[in-house]
């Protein structure tokens, strides 16, 4: 970092900091230079940190009351809801918290797609972010199994059976995952163990994600490189901290609206029926945040093919920094990409809608078209677009587009002229 060396004021602090530089770290985090034009889409990193901590704290408390056994799991959830003091509140925060976490992460990802935040030199930040996202999906899936309702059981059955599509060793892998010949008590126990572990791995990756971010610094809405510690940047504290807190409060308002007024609207009513290995519910749907991938899985008329395309739809994002050949980061200066970004956004929402519908008739045709477009966007359109798109000229600095707006300079001159009359010195 190009910051000046920090030396704590007191002798004691100097003594401590030279042995463990926590104060230097704290100073770095506060003075970390951020581009002065960051908009509210940049507040979701802080919001996501809040979501992770909320999930860990509420989860820790729920674990004090939950019983991971097929005969008691469903009952123990009802016990939490009815008997445990504030159990209903803690569980609803945890369950809706998962949805809010994904809402925030999707906004965060689409922000990166729009402003080209994944491009050089931020590829490693992007890939770590995707690893976090994959771990989030695994954690959420295993958490959804724990209440041992019908959707828990059949969701677990369908997802673990995905691995049986692997040629030759698929069946041994599913048996190994289950610890038996079907989803049963051993499966529930290990999912509980892993559901407890993975959030801490996510936490570790979040530290790496932020560390990697602090090397080049934030991208920004116009996507040009910003000189650090110049009049183009502001210290993280208090400027960004205040903006983040304000956005977080608005986010918490939405979060708590769900918790208090519609706590079950994002869940599936069938999960209030205890798991029954003999009866599959008429409609198995995953949680809303996994629906686009579910639609891709079902769009391919072959078992192995569906599984390959579903995983590929996530892993293709890891290659995005190299698939997008355009040197211009922000979509603001890429007229065609800007439109295609919204097409992609719409296609992903459409896939989510189709994932919730039965795989037949028009729904199946549309899911195939949308799946095809999703892959074409990343594999064909982006590599070619970088070569042929005529981008708009980039501004020289963050202040440039603001100051050089037509009329802005005239306004300055007018104000200057007025002051000149009052004889306050000349500033033309």
């Amino acid at each position, binding site marked *: 970092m190009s910051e000046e060396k920090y030396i704590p004021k007191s002798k004691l602090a100097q003594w401590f900091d030279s042995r463990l530089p926590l104060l230097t770290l704290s100073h770095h985090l506060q003075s970390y230079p951020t581009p002065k034009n960051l908009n509210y889409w940049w507040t979701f990193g802080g919001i996501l940190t809040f979501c992770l901590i909320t999930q860990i704290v509420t989860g820790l408390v729920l674990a004090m009351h939950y019983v991971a056994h097929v005969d008691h799991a469903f009952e123990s959830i009802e016990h939490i809801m009815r008997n445990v003091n504030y159990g209903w509140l803690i569980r609803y925060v945890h369950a809706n918290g998962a949805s809010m976490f994904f809402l925030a992460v999707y906004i965060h990802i689409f922000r990166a797609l729009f402003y080209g935040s994944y491009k050089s030199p931020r590829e490693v930040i992007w890939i770590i972010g995707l690893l976090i996202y994959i771990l989030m999906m695994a954690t959420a899936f295993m958490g959804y199994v724990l209440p041992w309702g019908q959707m828990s059981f059949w969701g677990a059955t*369908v997802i673990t059976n995905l691995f049986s599509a692997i040629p030759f060793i698929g069946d041994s892998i599913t048996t190994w995952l289950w610890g038996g010949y079907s989803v049963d008590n051993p499966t529930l126990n290990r999912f509980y163990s892993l559901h407890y572990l993975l959030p801490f791995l996510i936490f570790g990756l979040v530290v790496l994600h932020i560390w990697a971010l602090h090397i080049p610094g934030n991208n920004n809405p116009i996507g040009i490189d910003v000189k650090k510690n110049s009049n183009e940047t502001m210290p993280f504290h208090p400027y960004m901290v205040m903006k983040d807190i304000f956005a977080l409060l608005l986010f918490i308002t939405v979060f708590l609206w769900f918790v208090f007024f519609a706590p079950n609207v994002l869940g599936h009513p069938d999960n209030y029926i205890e798991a029954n290995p003999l009866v599959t519910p008429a409609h198995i749907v995953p949680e809303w945040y996994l629906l686009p991938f579910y639609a891709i899985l079902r769009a391919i008329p*072959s078992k192995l093919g569906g599984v390959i395309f579903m995983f590929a739809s996530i892993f293709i994002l890891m290659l995005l920094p190299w698939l997008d050949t355009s040197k211009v980061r922000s979509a603001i200066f890429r007229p065609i990409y800007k439109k295609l970004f919204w097409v992609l956004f719409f296609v992903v929402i459409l896939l989510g809608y189709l994932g919730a519908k039965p*795989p037949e008739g028009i729904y199946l045709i549309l899911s195939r078209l949308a799946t095809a477009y999703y892959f074409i966007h990343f594999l064909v359109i982006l590599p070619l677009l970088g070569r042929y798109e005529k981008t708009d000229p980039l501004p020289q600095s963050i202040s440039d587009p603001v100051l050089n707006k037509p009329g802005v300079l005239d306004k300055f001159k007018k104000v200057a002229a007025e002051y000149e009359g009052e004889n306050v010195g000349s500033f033309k």
Partner: protein
Amino acid sequence: MAEKIKRKRRDFLFTATYTVGAVGLGSAIWPLVDQMNPDSSVKALSTTEVDVSRLEPGKTITVLWRGKPIFIKRRTSKEIDEASKVDLKDLKDPEKDSDRASNPEWLVMVGVCTHLGCVPLSDKGEYKGWFCPCHGSHYDTSGRIRKGPAPKNLEIPKYEFVDNNTIKIG
């Protein structure tokens, strides 16, 4: 020259050390991996006996074996005819009906869709056999896959008739 020989010896020592280390690490990790496989108590529950004396022709019962549903269907002669008449060329996973049901009246199958593991519904679907509601796989009256994403026929478990009224599965 002596230097070269020394380096070769050193390379050998390094390679040998890495190899022994890797084998040691691997054998230390294996118990941690294998503990997730089915344990002895799970394996012990390997057979189930079912009394089928009260099952009427055309009806299916579902029993649990190793945590999985097993369909036992007493087929009508019409259903047996339909199943045996099918041309093997029309099948995705060709199998003769006589190979699937040694006693044609009784069809014993694992009631788990070979696609992603849901339980198909009996006497439903385009082939009047089984239909899986999850992703739309159709099975015929012999439990063979006819349409939809499932790759294989419904699995036939190991079973035998202990006497005229009892089937032992497993």
